[in-house]
Every structure is written in C-alpha cells, then in structure tokens.
C-alpha cells in the first residue's frame, strides 16, 4: 500500500493560510491587544478541539467494534499530529492569562467575595499546571494510539486490535474528565462567577461536530488528490449521518442549557445568555449562530443524496467547521467586558486566525498522514470495511 503523496499546491495553499493567520494575529496584537488575546484564545481552543477530535473518533470506533470505519481510521488517528503545535499555542496563551482571566488579578480577587472563595482553584500556577497536565496526557495517549495502530501495518497481528480497544477505552474515560476540566479552565472561567453543569457537554458537542466535519474535509481532499480510493459513497453516507447526528446533538445540548438557564432565571446563571442576547451586536451574532450552526446544516443534511456525495458533503462540512469556530468565538468573547463596554471581536483577525488554524492543522496532519500507510492494512476488519454497504 502506497502512502499518500502531498501535492505541492496543497502545501502552497496551507502555507498561505498559515501566513495569513500569522499576519492577522500579529496585526491584531499591534492594533488592539485587549481584543487580540481573546481572539488568540478562540484560535487556540479551536485548534485544540480539532486535534483531539480525531483520536476521540478513532477510539470511539475501536471500542464499539465498528467495521465500516476502518478505512478512514488512519486519517482520524493522524489528527493528533496537530496537537504538539497546539500545545505550543496554548502555552503561549499562558502569557495572556492576565489579560484574559479576571481571577488572575490579585486586586480584583481581594475585593470579590466569590473569586476569593474560588482562589484555591482559580489561580495562575495551578491553572498552568492543570492545563499542562491535560496536554501531556492527551499527547501521550494520542500518540500511543497512533503508534500501536501503525505497528499493526507490518506485524498484521490480530491481537493488536485487542490492545487498541484497551487503549481506546482508557483514552475515552480520561478524555471525558480532562476535557471537562479543560473547558471549565479555559472557557468557563472567563466569566469566573458563572457556572453551569451542561457547559462541558456543550464544548464536547462542538468538538464532536467539528471533528466529523474535519474528517470529511480531510477524506474528500485526500481523495481529490488520488488517495484513499477505498472510501466509497457508502462510507461518506455514514460520515454524513454522523455529521447530522452531531448537528442535532449540539442543538439539543445548546437548547437544554439555554432554555433551562432562561426558565430558572437565576441571576448568577442567566447573565451568560443575557450578555449574549440583549445587546445589539451580540444579539445578532447569537441569532446568526443558532441559524447557521443548526438550522441550515440540519435541513441540508436531511438529504440522502447529499450525504452520499463527497463533493457536496465537503461544502457543508466546511460551512459547519467555520460555524464551530464562530461558536468558540461566541463562547470566548460573548461575556467579556472592557471598561464597562462589551467587547466586540476584531472580525478580520478572527477570520485570519481561522485560516491560520486550518493551515497549521492541515499541514501537520497531512505530513503525519503521508508517513504511514493510508489505511490500516494490517487490520483484520479492513476487508469488511472495504466491502461495506449500507443495509438500509
């Protein structure tokens, strides 16, 4: 089995994206550092969910014993390659803790009873230690899964699958808890008084949805350049169903969180949604988010033909991926204030950073993908996956 050769023009495009991202990031910090840090956090968190999503998907397929997805497993496993660079960006974010997080200001904490009580958890050294801990764990587990999976290509040992199932089960369990805390630390603590139990599930829904969208984009792009011939319309159909499922799941979680918050109307909880739907800019931002993140993809993905056609599905996947980024921006920026005014993103900087994230992610993942066989050639279920047909 030949490995995938990255076409030169793809690399050119990705480098251009990285360039745009770097320039807009730098310009953002020059123009308005107050807004640049949240923009950078949105970029970092978005890159983080993309890099984690593939390993999560691969692990999920492994523990459920799914056979159809074996042909795309290698693509999913490769996303961990973007994690080291992401880790660097997250570490760079540590320099912005003071600009981003209210709880890092000793004077604010001293005058704020609630923050004072939270000081044991929300303080800079512990924050850095926690976030670094998650990153190390994710890197180890992600690379382990990929390494073991690739080792099967040459050994063809069916026992490897059993080992992979065990690693995957451990990964999912650890991932659930670490990602929960990462969401609380990185995003929830931006509005440090605010809390709600659904929040980690909400960020996970975004992770799942953007992960499937990424997978579709990667698979179709690789196919367009002559790779992954084993992936057929049958596999695309299942990926499309996954995309549909996560679109609905995201809406379900978002609705439950917001509706229950709105209904109970508790002051310490409501202001999360209040800041995002009362004022002019954020009101329209939120309405656009809900329509474009759920309603339109939902209607488009109902069609069976669209799900089976990679060329059409990739367009929706790009759209959804962008909306997932918008969702992260919404989470980061929506509650921020500066001198009593709501903070409005620079927009051009975030758009540039989105392209930058795509560039970095695409480049690192494709590099890693091209280093091993395109499909797990040693897997005993590969044949079943290649011959896979929808039964209904």
């Amino acid at each position, binding site marked *: 089995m030949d490995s995938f050769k990255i076409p030169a023009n793809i690399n050119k495009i990705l480098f251009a994206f990285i360039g745009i991202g770097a320039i807009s990031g730098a310009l953002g910090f020059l123009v308005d550092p107050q807004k640049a840090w949240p923009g950078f956090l949105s970029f970092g968190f978005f890159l983080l969910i993309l890099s984690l999503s593939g390993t999560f998907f691969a692990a999920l397929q492994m523990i459920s014993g799914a056979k159809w997805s074996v042909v795309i497993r290698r693509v999913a496993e490769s996303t961990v390659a973007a994690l080291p660079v992401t880790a660097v960006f997250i570490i760079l974010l540590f320099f912005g803790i003071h600009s981003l997080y209210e709880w890092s200001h000793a004077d604010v904490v001293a005058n704020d009873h*609630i923050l004072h*009580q*939270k000081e044991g*958890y929300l303080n800079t050294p512990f924050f850095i230690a926690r976030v670094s801990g998650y990153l190390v764990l994710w890197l180890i587990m992600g690379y382990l899964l990929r390494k073991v999976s690739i080792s099967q290509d040459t050994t063809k040992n069916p026992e490897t699958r059993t080992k992979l199932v065990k690693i995957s089960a451990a990964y999912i*369990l650890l991932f*659930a*808890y670490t990602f*929960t*805390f990462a969401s*609380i630390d990185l995003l929830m603590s931006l509005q440090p008084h605010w*809390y*709600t*139990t*659904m*929040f*980690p*599930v909400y960020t996970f829904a975004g992770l799942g949805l953007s992960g499937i969208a990424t997978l579709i984009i990667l698979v179709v792009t690789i196919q367009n350049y002559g790779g992954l011939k084993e992936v057929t319309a049958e596999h695309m159909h299942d990926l499309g169903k996954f995309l549909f499922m996560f679109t*609905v799941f995201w809406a*379900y*979680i978002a609705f*439950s*969180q917001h509706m*229950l*918050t709105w*209904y*109970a*109307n*508790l002051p*310490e909880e409501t202001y999360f949604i209040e800041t995002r739907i009362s004022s002019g800019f954020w009101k329209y931002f939120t309405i656009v988010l809900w329509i474009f993140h759920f309603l339109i993809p939902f209607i488009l993905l109902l069609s069976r033909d669209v799900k089976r056609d990679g060329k059409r599905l990739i367009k929706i996947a790009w759209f959804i991926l962008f909306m997932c980024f918008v969702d992260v921006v919404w989470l980061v920026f929506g509650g921020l204030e500066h001198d009593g005014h709501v903070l409005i993103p620079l927009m051009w900087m975030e758009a540039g950073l989105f392209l930058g994230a795509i560039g970095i992610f695409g480049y690192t993942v494709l590099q890693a993908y091209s280093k091993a066989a395109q499909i797990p050639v040693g897997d005993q279920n590969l044949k079943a996956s290649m011959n896979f047909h929808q*039964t*209904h």
Partner: protein
Amino acid sequence: MSLESVKNPFHIGKTFKQIDDDIMRPMETFPSKTWWIAFLIAASLLAMFAGILIYSFVKGLGIFGLNNPVGWGLYIVNFVFWVGIGHAGTLISAILFLFRQRWRTSINRAAEAMTIFAVMVAAIFPLIHVGRPWFVFWVFPYPNERGPLWVNWRSPLLWDVFAISTYFIISLQFWYMGLVPDFANMRDRQERFKARSKIGELLLTVKKITLRVISLGWVGSAKTWHHYEKMVLILSALATPLVLSVHTIVSFDFATSIIPGWHATIFPPYFVAGAIYSGFAMVLTLMIIMRRTFKLEDYITMKHLENIGLVILVTGMMVSYAYTVEFVIAAYSANKVEQYVFMNRLAGPYAWAFWTMFACNVVSPHFMWFKKLRNNLTVLFIISIVVNIGMWFERFVIVVTSLHRDYLPSSWDMYVPTIYDWGMMLGSFGVFFTFFLLFVRTLPVIAIAEVKADEANDSLHAAH
C-alpha cells in the same frame, strides 16, 4: 460454503420450522407451574396496588408520607423510575436498528413489550398525584366550556403529558407493526389446532378471526416486505428523537425549577443516560429469566447478554460522569446553597440512600470490564438487579434530599415513606409483571420474522 462456516456470532442455524416451534411453544402449551406461581404473586401485588389506590381515594393523600417541604415523594420517584425503564425497548428497536446492531433482533420484541408496560405503570403515578384523577382529561388542551380554564403551556409537567403520550403511541405502533408478520404466522398456524369441545371451538374461531384482523392481510410477498422495511426505517428515524425526548422532558420537571439539587442544566442528557442504564438492566433481568424458562438459549445467547452488559458499563460511566460534574460544579460555584445540597447528600440524614446509589450505580458496572464476568450468568443477573436498585435510589436522592431541607430551617422535615408508599412501589412491580407474564403467554417473545430474515441473509451471504 456451508452454513456452519458463517462466522456471524448471532447465526442460529436452525430451520424455519424449528424457529417457529421454539418461539411459539410457550403460547401453544398449557402454562407451567412456575408461570402460575409467578402470575399469582404478580396478580396479588396488582390487587394490593388497586386496594391501596382505592383506600387513598377514600381516605385521601394523607395516608402517604408526603409533607410540606417534601411534596414529591415516592410517587414521583416511582414515576421517573418506570419511565426510565421504558427507555430501553424503543432504543433497542429504533436506535440500535439505525446503528445496524444485529443482535437487537432477538431481544427487541420483549424489550418493546417491557417499554409499553413500564410506561403504562409510570403513567399511573402522576395520575393519582394530581389529586383528582377523574379530572385528568383537563391536561389535554381542547375547546371546552370551563371558561378561561386552559392548560399551562409553561409547565414542564404539561410537556410531560405530550412527551410521554407521544412516546407511548409511537412505541405501541412500533411494537404492533413488528408483530404483524408474526400475527400472520400465527394465523397460518391455527389450521393445526382442533377443538375438543363446543366452547373450545368457539374460542378457536374467535382467535382465528382476531388474528386474521390484526395481521392486516399480510401475505409476505416481496412487495409487502419492501414496504415493511421502508416503514421500519422511517419509524426508527422518527422514534429516535422521541426516545431521547421523553427523559429530557422528565428531567425538565426538575431542572426548570430553582431548587438547588434540581436545577442543573446537565439534567437532560444525564437523565437520558440514566434511563438507558436502568432500562438495559431491566432488559437483562427479564432476558436471563426468559431464556431460561422458555429454553431460548439458542436465540438469546451469551453474546447478547454480554453486549447488554457492555451497554450497562458505558451508560453507567456516563451516569457517574454526570454525578461527578454536578459535584465539581457545585464545588466550583462558590454558591453556599448549591454546595450545601451536595454535602447534605454525602453526609446528611439521607446519606445512606446516596451511598446505596453510589455503590450500585457507580461501582457495580465496573465489573463489566471483565469478559469473564460478562459471560457469567449469575454475575450478570446480580448486576442487573443491583443497577435497578441503584437507579431507583438515584431518583429517591434527587427528589427527597433536594426537598427535605427547605431554605428556612424551620421548614425542614424528614420524609418517611409510609407502608402505603412502599405498598404502591411494590404493587407497581405487580402491575408490570402481570402484564409481562400475560404477554409471554400470548405473543411471540422474539420477533420470529426478523430472526428468519437475518437467518436467510446469512445463508445468502454464505452462498457467495
């Protein structure tokens, strides 16, 4: 290639006649002694249930342990418990169908029956709890002459009415549509039975006509099957969101309030996971008993039970995750009231209930990590019972511990269920099992047509 070489673990390898005979045997023979004993116990519990019900109508709700802060007691606990049980059936028939989980075929019929009976039992509790059940039709919004009296659309309790009745109707439809080919099968088998008396002849005629009507003229042509399969697919897609919506709405009953311990936004997915958890545990209990007493080990194999064990493991960990998030966020919130509720659960007067729940729901599913234990009938049976005890206590913890300490310490009170409360709970099992035991004697407990279709597919693949 011969059939033996097919590697499908769910392949049965019997002739269609044998399958018919095996599955229809319980319906075509006189009930065994075991069945009669079980039925007698269940029916007496049902009678007790009805007795307490009538007594409560005569005496009033005062016979139950409800008091001022704890206005929702065992009634609501039992309601949520039974609705939760009612999740597994349609999940197995609809969601596992969409997930192409073939092992669902042998267990979906009984699981759906379980769902329908569980929802029926669940519905009794709010019915009594409304206080004047003879006016219960007021929950339906229809043009009436009661002046401005209209349902309160803002109340999640009303959403419940719609969520549960819709779920019940669709589940019933699903169950019935799945039964149609089997009814036709039963209809065609009637020829072999000869009555020995006049009354017998009459009964047989009634049965024949009934079967003819309810099998809707099914002939089993290719075209009929084609339509049938399309129908199952569409119905599955429609039923899938319904399965999730029911416990979501039930969780809204609590989460829309501002009572600490009830108002948590994670409740919807947490309740759904818990419902699937308890539902599958109940399926496991019933399947283990059923396959043994009706000698259906070839159809409901250890592999089926093992898979149910895995579902229990996964959903059990989801439930544990939700508990953890609740505690973590309460700790993080720096909200005194929120923190107190959770500390009170851990160490308050109802700590015994909390720790029972913890041991049953959080600890016990982890035995399912081990293949040896997943293949051990005794372990599986114990786990299935333990999980359901745990899930019952989960609802008890949520309902009672959140209510019994009101905001004003002067309003604090303990909730002690009376003998009538416990009688109602025990009686609800009687109602459920009476229906279930009647079901196993009157309808095929395994979807015969679906099992045959899978067997036929296997031979087709084997021929290539």
